[in-house]
C-alpha cells in the first residue's frame, strides 16, 4: 500500500493532463475489474460486479488530477509567468519548486516582493534556469505541478497530491478487496475535479448511478490556532453532512454510519464551510443521484506537503468495502 501510494502521489497529473496517473491506475487494477472505458474528458470509468436483485448501481469517484500552475507568458529573460490550475493559494507558492511534463524543474518567485505582503498570483514567475525566451523550454499553456517528495513518517505520511491520490488509493484497495457485493460498482477515476468537478459531471452522466460516493480529502483542523476543531487525525474517516457543493443525502449517510458501526470503525461527521467534491456534481446528474463523501482528514491541503494519518486511510478502505458489500436500505 505504501509503495502504491508513493507511486500515485509522485505521478504528474495536473487538471486536464491526467493521462499518466490514469495509465498507472489502469495498470494496477486491470485484472481486478470487469470492464473499463475512457471518456472524452479522460475519465477512467470501470465496472466491478453486476447488479443483483437487492443491489444498486453505485458510482465511487476519486479524482486523479492535482492542483498546478500553467504558463501564461515567457518574457525576454526567460522567466515564465504562471496562473493557477485549481485552488492554488499565492501564500503557498513562494520559493517552492515545480516540475513540468517534460521534467523541466523550476522555482517560484514573485515580482515586487515586500516583507509581510503576499504577492498576487499573477505576479509569480517560474525560473527554469533559462537565460532567454528562446532558450526557455516551457511555453504558454504548459502545465506544472508542485515538487513534494513522499515521506513515510510512521503513523503519518506526507507528500504532494495526497489530494486526491489518497482517494485513488482507497478506491484501488477497496476494488481489490471487494469480493461479494450485490452491487454493480462503477469505480471512476475522474479528471478536472480541482477546476470545478468537471470530470465527475460527464462520467456520472454516462454511468447513470443510483448512488454516488466521492472519495476525497477534507480539511483536518487539529493544528494550532484554529477556532473550529471538528475534524482530527486518527479519529477515523469522515462522512459528509454538508459542504459547498452537497448536502449529504440523509438516508445514505445513515447507511454509511451503519456500515462503520458494523465494521467497528470510528468515524467523524463532516460539515465543511465551502469547498466541494465530485459528489456535488454526481448528485445533480440526470434525475439526481443521492450522494455522499467518504473523506480522509488531511493537513496542509493544497500545499506541496499534504499529510494524512495511516489509520484513517485504512479505516476509510474498510468502511468503503463494508458499505459496498451489503445491501443498502
Amino acid at each position, binding site marked *: 500500500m505504501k509503495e502504491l501510494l508513493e507511486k500515485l502521489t509522485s505521478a504528474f497529473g495536473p487538471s*486536464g493532463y491526467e493521462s499518466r496517473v490514469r495509465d498507472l491506475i489502469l495498470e494496477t487494477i486491470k485484472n481486478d475489474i470487469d470492464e473499463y472505458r475512457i471518456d*472524452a474528458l479522460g475519465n477512467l470509468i470501470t465496472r466491478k460486479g453486476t447488479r443483483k436483485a437487492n443491489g444498486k448501481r453505485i458510482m465511487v469517484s476519486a479524482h486523479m488530477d492535482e492542483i498546478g500552475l*500553467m504558463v*501564461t*507568458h515567457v518574457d525576454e529573460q526567460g522567466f515564465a*509567468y504562471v496562473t493557477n490550475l485549481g485552488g492554488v493559494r499565492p501564500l503557498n507558492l513562494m520559493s517552492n519548486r515545480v516540475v513540468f511534463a517534460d521534467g523541466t524543474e523550476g522555482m517560484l518567485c514573485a515580482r515586487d516582493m515586500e516583507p509581510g505582503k503576499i504577492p498576487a498570483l499573477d505576479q509569480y514567475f517560474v525560473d527554469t534556469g533559462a537565460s532567454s525566451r528562446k532558450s526557455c523550454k516551457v511555453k504558454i*499553456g504548459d502545465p506544472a505541478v508542485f515538487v513534494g517528495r513522499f515521506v513515510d513518517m510512521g503513523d503519518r505520511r506526507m507528500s504532494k497530491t495526497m489530494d486526491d491520490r489518497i482517494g485513488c488509493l482507497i478506491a484501488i484497495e477497496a476494488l481489490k478487496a471487494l469480493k461479494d457485493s450485490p452491487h454493480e460498482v462503477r469505480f471512476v477515476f475522474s479528471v*478536472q475535479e480541482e477546476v470545478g468537478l*468537471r470530470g465527475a459531471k*460527464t462520467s456520472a452522466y454516462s454511468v447513470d448511478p443510483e448512488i454516488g460516493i466521492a472519495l476525497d480529502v477534507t480539511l483536518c483542523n487539529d493544528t494550532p490556532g484554529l477556532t473550529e476543531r471538528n475534524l482530527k487525525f486518527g479519529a477515523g474517516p469522515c462522512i459528509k453532512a454538508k459542504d459547498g457543493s452537497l448536502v449529504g443525502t440523509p438516508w445514505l449517510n445513515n447507511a454509511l454510519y451503519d456500515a462503520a458501526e458494523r465494521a467497528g470503525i470510528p468515524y467523524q461527521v463532516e460539515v465543511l464551510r465551502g469547498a466541494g467534491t465530485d459528489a456535488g456534481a454526481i448528485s445533480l446528474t440526470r434525475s439526481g443521484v443521492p450522494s455522499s463523501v467518504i473523506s480522509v482528514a488531511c493537513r496542509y491541503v493544497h500545499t506541496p506537503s499534504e499529510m494524512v494519518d495511516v489509520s484513517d486511510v485504512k479505516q476509510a478502505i474498510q468502511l468503503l468495502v463494508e458499505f459496498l458489500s451489503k445491501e443498502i436500505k
Partner: protein
Amino acid sequence: MMKNDKQLSLPVLTQTDIDLLAELSHACSVSGDEREVRKIVRREIQPIADSFEVDALGNAIAVRKAKTAEFTRVLISAHMDEIGFMLVNEEDPGIFRFKSVGGIDPRQMAGKAVWVGPDHVPGVIGACPIHLTTPEDRKKTIKESDLRIDIGAENKAVKPGMFAYYATKFSEMGSSVCGKALDNRFGVCILIRLFKECPDNVELIAAFTVQEEVGIRGASVVAWDRKPDLAIVIDSTPAMDLPRWDGEESFIYKSKLGEGPAIYTHDGRTLSDPRIINYLIDTAEAYGIPFQRRQPMPGGTDAGAIHLTQEGIPTVSMSVPGRYAHSAAAIARKSDWEAQIQLLYAALANLDKTLLAQPR
C-alpha cells in the same frame, strides 16, 4: 507537420465580409433578446441550410450535411448576444433607471450615447457637469445605480423591459475595424462565411447561441440536443496589449492584435482538449497561418457549457483578439479575422476520425 496537408485555396476576407460585420455590429441583441442578429443569420444561411431551427431559448441552429461517406459531426458555436442595458423603471418621463447586462465596467457608462429599444430611439447616459462636481467626487467611480438613461422626453413606445445599447457606428480604421459588439459579431460573421463555404468532409452544425454573456446558457442546450463529435467555439477575446507605464515587457495581456487567432488552452471554465489544440497548431503551421496561444487566465466561452454536456464533448475555443471588449467600441485587426477564417477552414478540410482515436 501534418501528414496530409491538402492543397487548399484558403478563403480571403472580402468587402462582403466587412459589410456583413458592419451590419451585425449595428444590430442590437442584448442577452435574452437576440432577435436582430438572429434575423440576419436567418437571412444569410437559412436558404442554403439542410435544416434551420430556433429552439426554446432562441438559439438558431443550422446544419449543413457532409458530402462524403466518412465524416465528422462538428459543432461550431458563436454567440449572438452582446452586453447592454435593460430599462427597469421610468422614474420621470423619458428618464429610466437601468441595469447592465453581461458585465460592463461602470467607468464605461457615464456620458455615452445609446440606442433604446427595437426602434433604436437615441438616448444618453447622462453625467453630471464637471462644474457641479467636486474634486473629491471626481475621484470616485459613478455607480451604475446613480446613472440614468435619458431619451430627452416622454415616448410612449419606450418602456421598462426594453434594452439599450451603445450607439456606435461601425468603421474601418487603418488596418483595423472598430465597432460595438465585435464580441461576438466576429464569431457570427465568421460562422456565416464558413457555413457558406464548408468543406465536404464535415457535417457542420452551426450554432448561433444566446445568453453567453450572462452565464453561457444557450450553448448548453444546443450541445445537449445535438451531441457532436467535437466542438469549436468561435468568439472574440480581449486584447490588453497596451503599453506598461514603465515601458517594461507586459506579461498580462490575454491576447495581442496582429498575431493571429488566439487558441485557448485554459480559461475560467474550460481546459481545451489538447488533441484539438495541437491539431489546430499543426494545421496553422502547415499552411503558414499565424496564430497565438491565448494566455491561460479567467474568462470563458460557450465551450464551458459544451464540453461538459452529457458524456463530454472534445472542445476548443478560438477567438479574434479585440481591444476594449465590453465597452462602447472595440478595435480589432482585419488580418486576425482573416487568419481565423483560414485556420478554421483548413482545420475542417483536413479533419478525420484519427484525431480523437487516442484518449485525451
